[in-house]
Structure formats: structure tokens, C-alpha cells
């Protein structure tokens, strides 16, 4: 399922500068390079992922996001992207501020902890959800901040963040039909396009 990639593609202007925070194996940047001819850089700390980026010709910079992004100047990128990593940041709201300082626009994707299956897991099993998207036990998970679609909406209001676009992704029927009615309940992955 690369629905989030397709959505991101639509929001990126060709031939612009893109910074991908926590770029993993560089798959997103590679597809943006190939389809949109962007100048992309990814930040990553995992040695295996870094090597995959190098092997496929994606610019990758070894840098720990939790140690700050002060080396990047204000407005030095057209778009700053972070896919499925905000929940793993030590201080997500400050990372968001930094992203909006460095980029004219930002794109964020995150797993919605308000998704009904996740709620059901906690409700009925009484244990922290282990799902395909959040495939860790509570003690070894890198995901240290669980938040919902609704939480993120509130954060954007509180911090005066402008939501340019939002898209909800759900994999299965009937979630796919219901997500527009009750996004907080039926969205698995939320994708946001933001600016200041």
C-alpha cells in the first residue's frame, strides 16, 4: 500500500527542493526524483537504511532528528516531509515547528491511534495495540507518542498551523467509505499538507 506516496506526489511541485526527515530506505525520495525531478535529501540514522539510500542514488545525510535541525536555514527547502515518524520524535510539536521553519510547506503522515480497530484492541483485549502499522510491543516501540487524527487537528489550531490539504487513508471496506464521515474513527493513516 503506497497510497500515501501517491498523495504526497500530488502535493510536491516538480523540480523543487525536498527534505525527507527519517527517509528510511529512500523509496519516497527515489520516486519523487524519478517522477518529479526534485532535488531531495533524506535524514536517517539507521545504517542499513542509509546504505540502501546510497545504493539507489538517493542523497542521505546521517543526522539524528532528536538532536535538532539547526544546521538548516529558514526556508531552505520548498517542502519538508516526514512519513510515519512524528510519533517517534521526543518532542513532536517542536519538530513540527522546525519543519515549518525550514520548509515553505510540510507534509506529514502518521498512524491514527483513534482508528476503530486500534480502539477495539485496547478496549476488548485491554492491552496496548500491536498492529501491522504499529508492530511493536509497548516496551520496545520507537513510537513514544500516540495521537489521533483529532489530536493532530487540535495541535494545528493551537499552534496556528495552516492545513492546506488533508487526506485520510483506510485499507478495508467499510472503512474506506466511512472515513470521510468519521475520519477520527476510520482513518488508518492521516496525510497532512501544512504551511505557516
Amino acid at each position, binding site marked *: 500500500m503506497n497510497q500515501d506516496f501517491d498523495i504526497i506526489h500530488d502535493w510536491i511541485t516538480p523540480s523543487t527542493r525536498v527534505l525527507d526527515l527519517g527517509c528510511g530506505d529512500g523509496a519516497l525520495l527515489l520516486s519523487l526524483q524519478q517522477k518529479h525531478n526534485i532535488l531531495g535529501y533524506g535524514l536517517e540514522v539507521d545504517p542499513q537504511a542509509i546504505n540502501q539510500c*546510497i545504493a539507489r*542514488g538517493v542523497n542521505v*545525510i546521517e543526522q539524528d532528528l532528536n538532536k535538532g535541525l539547526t544546521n538548516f536555514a529558514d526556508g531552505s527547502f520548498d517542502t519538508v516531509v516526514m512519513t510515519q515518524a512524528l510519533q517517534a520524535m521526543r518532542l513532536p510539536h517542536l519538530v513540527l515547528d522546525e519543519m515549518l521553519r525550514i520548509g515553505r510547506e510540510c507534509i506529514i503522515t502518521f498512524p491514527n491511534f483513534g482508528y476503530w480497530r486500534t480502539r477495539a484492541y485496547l478496549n476488548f483485549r485491554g492491552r496496548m495495540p500491536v498492529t501491522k502499522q504499529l508492530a511493536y510491543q509497548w516496551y520496545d516501540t520507537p513510537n513514544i507518542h500516540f495521537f489521533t487524527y483529532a489530536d493532530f487537528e487540535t495541535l494545528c489550531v493551537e499552534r496556528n498551523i495552516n492545513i492546506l490539504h488533508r487526506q485520510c487513508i483506510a485499507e478495508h471496506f467499510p472503512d474506506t467509505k466511512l472515513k470521510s464521515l468519521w475520519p477520527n474513527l476510520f482513518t488508518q493513516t492521516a496525510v497532512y499538507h501544512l504551511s505557516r
Partner: protein
Amino acid sequence: MLSDSPTDQSIGIVTSQTVNIKQPLKLACGLVLETHNLVYETYGELNSLKSNGILLCHALSGDHHAAGFYAGDSKPGWWDHYVGPGKPIDTDKFFVVSLNNIGSCFGSTGPTSINPDTGKLWGADFPSLRARDWVESQKMLMEHLGIDCWAAVIGGSLGGMQAMRWSLEHPDKLLNAVVIASSMKLTAQNIAFNEIARRAIKSDPDFCDGHYLEQNKAPLRGLALARMIGHVTYLSDELMGQKFGRQLRIGDLIDKSNDPIEFQIESYLNYQGDKFSDSFDANSYILITKMLDYFDLSREYNNDPVAAFAHAQCDFLVMAFSSDWRFAPQRSREITDALMSAGKSVSYIEIESDKGHDAFLLPNDRYEQALGSYLSRVADGLNAPLGDGQ
């Protein structure tokens, strides 16, 4: 220094060649070398497009013997672990050129050569050099070999400075620059260590104002001391602790005796110093440490590294080692940040190592993997005509 595992492939027996470059080389200091000799080695085959050339740039004390073995010699070249068939700098794919640069002392024109104007040894009168002089001389060797564009220019430390200088001086003559454990300019602390080394050499009574060779002398003690200082700065505190700790080589600190005592580290450093002073020339050491001190990538670009790198056209791979305090990772970060601001393609890796600055010469899995992955992509792009690059 390198210990190769038995599975390693070696390029095997190699021989060096010498070329007399007849084209005048105008140096940055204004003086001209009408002709100069370069000693070099090549590994692998140049392809029909002449597009697979890789230039290796050596550092302060390096030479042209980067890989393989000389007949009858059991010690491989200084970068044998990384250069050879199937190795990160793969000689099955690339034509690798490694030279001894001018001003050094392994056969290329330098302080131990004859000054044609006087008929005497150059000695301390050899003109002062800048990294760009090495680049210009390397370009003449490139033309001699019939190569129009390097697939990559690679170097560690001072070698990385040459790779960066190549990207600014001849942007259309290289597709990739690999800059390892390097810096855009030395820090005051770095210059300080170099000056201590030079003072050690000049303080040796056998230095004779740099004209020791004419008097059949050599400032061996001064040069050994200079190298001992350098050597300490190339290692990390952690590694020295692990390798030597407080182990004694001679004597015993527990017994009440007046017998001599020697720590392992003392013996090791003295050995390294003496070995070096037997093989290196003191004037070359002074000359090349000054070259390091003078290097400042962006001096002529209004001291703006972003403006400097705006001239580059190649892609970059920048690497640093965590415990390197002589060319700290922060220096490589500065290179990387400037390259990103200038909109150049760059990847940066900070490799965990306890081996200090010397790490760039030593086996390290992650380093090998990164360099290998990067260059194998470069190799994949070689069959395209020059210019479309990878």
C-alpha cells in the same frame, strides 16, 4: 598497518611508473616548475570510453603505492584493504590511478630532487605548495593517461581537500568526489600541532637549515619526534587505552628497584617515529604540513563555502569517523551543509569507530559497505556516454 583477512582479493604484484611531465607547472606561489616527474601506479584496465578512471589522492605522508605488492615484498600498499578486485574501489570495474605528489619524497619531484637552475638538491628551497598545485599536476598526469573525466576523485584527510579542490578548479573533469575525514580548512589547534612538528624538525642540529642532504645528514631525531606528535593526534584516547593501557614493556613498578621502566606506548611511539624518519624526508614533512595549514577551500570565494561549492558539478560522498578529533565529524558536517545549501548531490555518513583519524585507512565494515555501494552505482552509470553521468 593493514591486516588483510585471507578471503581478501589482492590486485597482486604491481610496479610503479615514472612520467616526466614536460608541460610547465605554474605554482600558486608564482614560481614555475618547467618539468616535473611523477611516480604513479595504476590498477585495473581503462575502458574504451576512458570513463572509468578513479584518482586516489594521498594524504600527508602517503605515496603512490596504494594497493598490491611489490615483487618480493610482503607488505601491501597503504589502501590495499579498499582497492582491488571485488573491493570497494573495485579494480575489476575501475582504472585506478595513484600517484606520489610533487613535494613529497617517493620519487616525484620534490625537496630531494635536483633543482635544474642550480644543479643542487632543492632541499628547503623547494617552492611552497598549495593543494591546487597538486591538483594541477594531477591533471597533467590525467592528460598523459588520455583520461578526459574522472569517474571519481577520492581522498582522505589532505586527500579529501584535493578532491574538493578538483571539484572547484575543474568541475567538468570529475563526476564524483569522495571526501573522507577531511575539512574545508584546518582549525587553530590543527595548525598548532603542525607547527610543533615543524619546530621539532628544525630544532634537530642535523637539520642544517634544511640543507642536510648536501652534508650527508638527516634530522632523524627531529622528524621522529614530529611523527610521534602527529601519531598521537591520529589515534583516539580510547584506542590507545585499549591497545596499550599502562602496560609495561620493561621493568616492574611494584618491586622496589631502580631498574629501567618502559611503558608499551613509549616503545610503540618511538618505534613508529624511527620507522617514519627512516623513510620520509624532513623538508617534505615541513612543506606538506604547511600546505595543510594554508588550505582554505573558500578563501577566494569571499570565505563563503556555499559560493565556492556552487561551482562544483559533481556528486559528493562525505564520510567522517566518530573518534577522529584531528578532522572531527563536525568539519565534515560543515562540508555537507555547504553542499546542500549549494544544491549539490551529497550523502554524508558518520562512521562509528574508535580508531581516530587513522580510521580512514583501516578496515571497517560500514565504511567499506558505504564506499562500495556508492562506487558500484558510479560503475553502473559508466556505460552511459560522459556527461550524462550517473
